[in-house]
């Protein structure tokens, strides 16, 4: 090969490499047309919402009304609320190791990550163990013989512009999870429609509509918001069993242990 031919070959190879590299370098959430939900997020508002009134109307961020229960579930809620007032309404979260279930996953005190890919979205919570997988590859829910109630249920969705819309079914509920420490629970017939979108550059808003023909007379709506925290923030380990000094006794009461494992509470 002459020097001229060699130069030509080198030039062609370089041009080919450049042509291949350019699209790859542009690859990412933006290149897919999907929104940028990168970084670390924290829920706005603290803890369980304070129920102020009955009704299923849209709630303000960090607040909400009580679910529109049917008569049977209103009684169940009131019994739970009475226990909660005595501080004896056990929260499965306190047992360490059990997922909180959906949609309570959107109401955790620690940080969140939202991983967006064309075929799937993951919601990763720092307060574990909780993880939501939302399929956006066009599949539907599994057939009935492949469904059984689980903590996170089965979520399938799609994108409407910059809004992630997903439907969650087959969620474990009353007896396994609670929605709120003030006594709110749902039945195993719960179905949740969630719409998440950026409503400001660093604000994600989730509009959640709970339908539950077993427990509710009409849909129950909740709004959750998440704020993106400083760039480069890390997410940390959260192993609830590491040093759990607040076990729950058989009556549902939360105990406090000393460093030697003995109960320090004076009240029985």
């Amino acid at each position, binding site marked *: 090969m002459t020097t001229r031919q060699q130069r030509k070959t080198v030039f062609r190879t370089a041009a080919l490499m450049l042509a291949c590299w350019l699209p790859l370098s542009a690859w990412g959430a933006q290149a897919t047309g999907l929104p940028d939900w990168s970084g670390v997020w924290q829920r706005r508002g*603290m*803890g*369980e919402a304070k129920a102020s009134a009955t009704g299923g109307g849209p709630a303000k961020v960090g607040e909400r009304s009580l679910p529109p229960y049917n008569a049977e579930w209103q009684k169940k809620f009131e019994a739970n609320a009475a226990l909660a007032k005595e*501080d004896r*309404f056990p*929260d499965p*979260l*306190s047992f*360490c190791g059990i997922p909180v279930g959906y949609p309570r996953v959107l109401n*955790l*005190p*620690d*940080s969140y990550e939202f991983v967006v890919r064309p075929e799937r979205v993951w919601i990763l919570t*720092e*307060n574990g163990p909780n993880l939501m997988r939302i399929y956006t590859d066009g599949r539907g829910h599994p057939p009935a013989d492949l469904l059984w109630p689980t903590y996170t249920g089965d979520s399938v969705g799609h994108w409407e512009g910059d809004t992630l819309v997903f439907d969650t079914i087959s969620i474990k509920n009353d007896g396994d999870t609670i929605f709120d*420490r003030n006594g709110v629970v749902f039945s195993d017939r719960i179905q949740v429609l969630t719409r998440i979108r950026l409503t400001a550059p660093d604000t994600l808003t989730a509009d959640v509509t709970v339908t539950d023909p077993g427990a509710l007379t009409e849909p129950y709506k909740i709004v959750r918001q998440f704020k993106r*925290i400083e760039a480069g*923030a890390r*997410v*940390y*380990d*959260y*192993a*609830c069993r*590491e*040093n*759990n*000094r*607040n076990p*729950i006794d058989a009556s549902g009461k*939360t105990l*406090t242990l*000393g*460093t030697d494992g003995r109960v*320090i*509470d*004076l*009240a029985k």
Partner: protein
Amino acid sequence: MLRPLRSATLLLATMSIACAQVASAHHSTGMFDQAKTIKLVGTVKQFQWTNPHSWIQVDVTNEAGVKEEWSIEGNSPNQLIRLGWRPGTLKAGDTVTLLVKPMRDGAKGGMFVEITLADGTVLKQYDR
């Protein structure tokens, strides 16, 4: 030493902090008296930088001159680190002043609201 807060201004300030944050990550906070804030001055016996809660074991001399160990509960490391805490913030032997929501039943335990270190540094448990 252990004494109730006497300054109305300080009490209001600490109540406003507490009212904004009555919920806890891992369990009900019903055992803590949210309407009451006490001040504990003592010596750190142990600092547990652990999940689901951090704990400050602090020796406090009561009004009768007897040393008592208190178990003071705080948030998990992931939350505290974002508020400026570090695993090495407290060491055994450090003198600290704690503002605490005490246990309702009078047990020697509580949830801390704020801590002042020997060098005057003030750290909180919540940023709200």
